[in-house]
């Protein structure tokens, strides 16, 4: 691969994180065994990591619960709060552009008698705090709004929503998978439940967390039960090396945030400029100010998205049409529902490329992508 520009789908593991994982993998740690040193050491490792993840979102260590993936954490947040609080009401508010791991559990709740409102975004991919708060009813038990949309890169007004909801009423859940390590996370201070993923912040696959703030004293009802690990919130032997890696990855992400952001911002502008120049009429989705730099969603003109992505692929440049989660590697890409929700036509949505810039992205990577695009035009002319 000559240029990896798909850091939204997954990120390479940071070498420091990898080194730590390899050390941990060398021993048979089961953190749930209390009477021998391998067990005790395993428990210590995951507690260190818990502290690291907690620090990144200003939470207490005891408020961090490990799950095997962000999908699992989102399933737990939505279903666990819904079933745990159904006596208080059966209404949920979310947005039309959430990740499928929030939307599918919401849809499945319909069969159990819940009602869900899906708030639409504006044409820049932002839902207004007002429209979310207006959708809240007396029987609303949960509001779930992502921090950063994974297709467009638009930033949602989570802090405003939290302020509007106040300390009573529905709980607020935020899927912050695409925000962590990319923008400062202080806006999560008053969010009740937060989903974080390891493999989007240069940590390994197989680790994620649901942060549940204790001030409301409400825990989701578990959806995977058994040995009582994670205080019963998510049972199963914890994946110690992955969790260790996740902890360090979160710490590094917070530490590197400032330096990384300015570099990525410059590279993103260059990519946007280059594509607009090569393909006049192309535009970047979202709006400066309410969008993250590291997600560059470009609706291109003059060439089909499919042709372009194939040419990029052949040249070893990784980018995507839509998101990895909305189609299999082999099947034809469906137009992204998030792009349709901001008013793109199906044709435009199919011609929208998503570039994910990251810690290891260089100007050479950007130039490689632009080179492919320019070459393609040259050949087709």
């Amino acid at each position: 691969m000559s240029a990896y520009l798909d850091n939204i789908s997954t990120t390479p593991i940071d070498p420091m994180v990898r080194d730590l994982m390899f050390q941990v993998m060398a021993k048979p740690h089961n953190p749930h065994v209390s009477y021998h040193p391998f067990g005790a050491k395993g428990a210590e490792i995951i507690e260190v990591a818990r502290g690291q993840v907690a620090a990144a979102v200003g939470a207490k260590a005891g408020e961090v619960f490990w799950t095997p993936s962000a999908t699992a954490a989102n399933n737990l947040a939505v279903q666990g709060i819904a079933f745990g609080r159904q006596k208080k009401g059966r209404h949920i508010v979310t947005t039309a552009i959430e990740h499928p791991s929030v939307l599918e559990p919401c849809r499945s709740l319909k069969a159990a008698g819940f009602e869900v409102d899906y708030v639409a975004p504006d044409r820049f991919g932002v839902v207004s705090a007002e429209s979310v708060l207006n959708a809240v009813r007396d029987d609303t038990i949960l509001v779930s709004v992502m921090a950063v949309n994974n297709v467009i890169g638009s930033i949602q007004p989570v802090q405003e929503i939290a302020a509007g909801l106040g300390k009573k009423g529905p709980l607020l859940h935020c899927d912050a998978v695409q925000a962590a390590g990319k923008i400062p996370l202080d806006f999560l201070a008053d969010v009740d439940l937060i989903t974080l993923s390891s493999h989007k912040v240069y940590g390994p696959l197989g680790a994620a967390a649901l942060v549940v703030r204790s001030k409301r004293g409400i825990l989701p009802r578990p959806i995977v039960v058994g040995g009582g690990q994670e205080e019963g919130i998510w049972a199963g032997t914890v994946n110690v090396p992955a969790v260790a890696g996740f902890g360090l990855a979160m710490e590094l992400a917070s530490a590197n945030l400032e330096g990384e952001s300015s570099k990525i911002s410059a590279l993103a502008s260059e990519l946007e400029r280059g594509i607009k120049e090569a393909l006049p009429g192309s535009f970047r989705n979202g709006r400066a100010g309410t969008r993250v730099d590291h997600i560059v969603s470009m609706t291109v003109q003059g060439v089909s998205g499919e042709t372009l992505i194939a040419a990029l692929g052949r040249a070893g440049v990784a980018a995507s049409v839509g998101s990895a989660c909305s189609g299999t590697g082999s099947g034809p890409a469906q137009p992204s529902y998030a792009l349709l929700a901001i008013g793109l036509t199906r044709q435009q949505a199919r011609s929208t490329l998503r570039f994910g810039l990251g810690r290891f992205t260089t100007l050479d990577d950007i130039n490689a992508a632009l080179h492919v695009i320019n070459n393609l035009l040259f050949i087709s002319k």
Partner: protein
Amino acid sequence: MDNKSVYLDNNATTALAQEVLEAMLPYLREQFYNPSSSYPEAKGPRDAIEAARESVARLLGAGAKSEILFTSGATEANNAALWGVLRANPDRRHIVTTQVEHPAVLEVTKELERNGYRVTRLGVDRDGTLDKVELLQAIEKDTAIVSIMHGNNETGVIFPIAELSRIVKAVDSKVVFHTDATQTVGKIPLNLTKGLPDVDILTLSAHKLHGPKGTGAMFVRRGVRWRPWLIGGHQERSRRAGTENVAGIVGLGVAARLAMHNFVQETRLKLLRDKLEAAILEAIPNVFVNGQNAERLPNTTSFAFEYVEGESILLALSDAGICASSGSACTSGSLDPSHVLKAMHIPFSAAHGSLRISTSRYTTEAEVQRLIDVLPGIISSLRRISPYWDNETNAPRADVDVFVQEKYR
């Protein structure tokens, strides 16, 4: 925790096999791609997942690799198995299971009861075996699923699931038969096509067979009515959502292949186990082996030492550099005797002194010998300070039955 530690707690977790670790490394380095991505590089991880699926299918003797799906572990798989079957068969509200299941099944059935389902839990006899007639009688008109583990994690007792599943199907072919085979997969050969044709769903964990933590698998026989549990992604053909833990899955695949090559070790481990049991029963009074008369896993021994505390044995062993367990990792920390020994009617005074030794293919004879060398001394020094023990006669106090007031709650 030096290299000289003797690790005899392989039913809790196993060390990664070197081959497994090496196979995982590329997927933690340059092959980091999301398998769902469309560019050519992502084909590497995608193919690796399919190769692992093939290996697991082969280890289990599954008819098709599409019957295997990967999860984050056996606990998730067990939850998915039970809930998934009940969701797909809404008219059936009854579950049959046993009293000695792993918490990952036991706790799900408790949760199901809280949700209005009915659960029948079959008991076991003193040897830990099930009564087949009782199973037959337990099946009701609206039984959705029978969940019976294959090998018990605490005692190593193996249930004859081929026969049990046949019985269930004979009564009602629509009842789904699930087995949690976490402790048997990789330790004893099994074949879902020829040997276990009536088993519909089988669950397993990678880290019990020298694979990594964070990965498990589920066999779901083609045609079985079942609905996915984690949703919101097309992964695993929409049967289990979430980006695949590629390195973990690759590790499980290699662990499965290694296990197939190592079934020859079964005899050696059995001999090692028998040697250990004979030596301890010979050297120490008032001890027995739980489930000794039942068919058991080749790697597991559950000792019950009367009138000593299991926890004290473990601490003393730990000081001697030996890692073992009192029951299961998942219930240790609690002072209650294990639910498994309780179900077997092991007396309270003995169940409290239980010690589980679980070996692996990497366990050497010298390591087991080290246990044989230190254990008699540990037990006798603990008994010297036990209020139930008479040091004069080196036997329990004559009035011990009156003295032991504690009973199962």
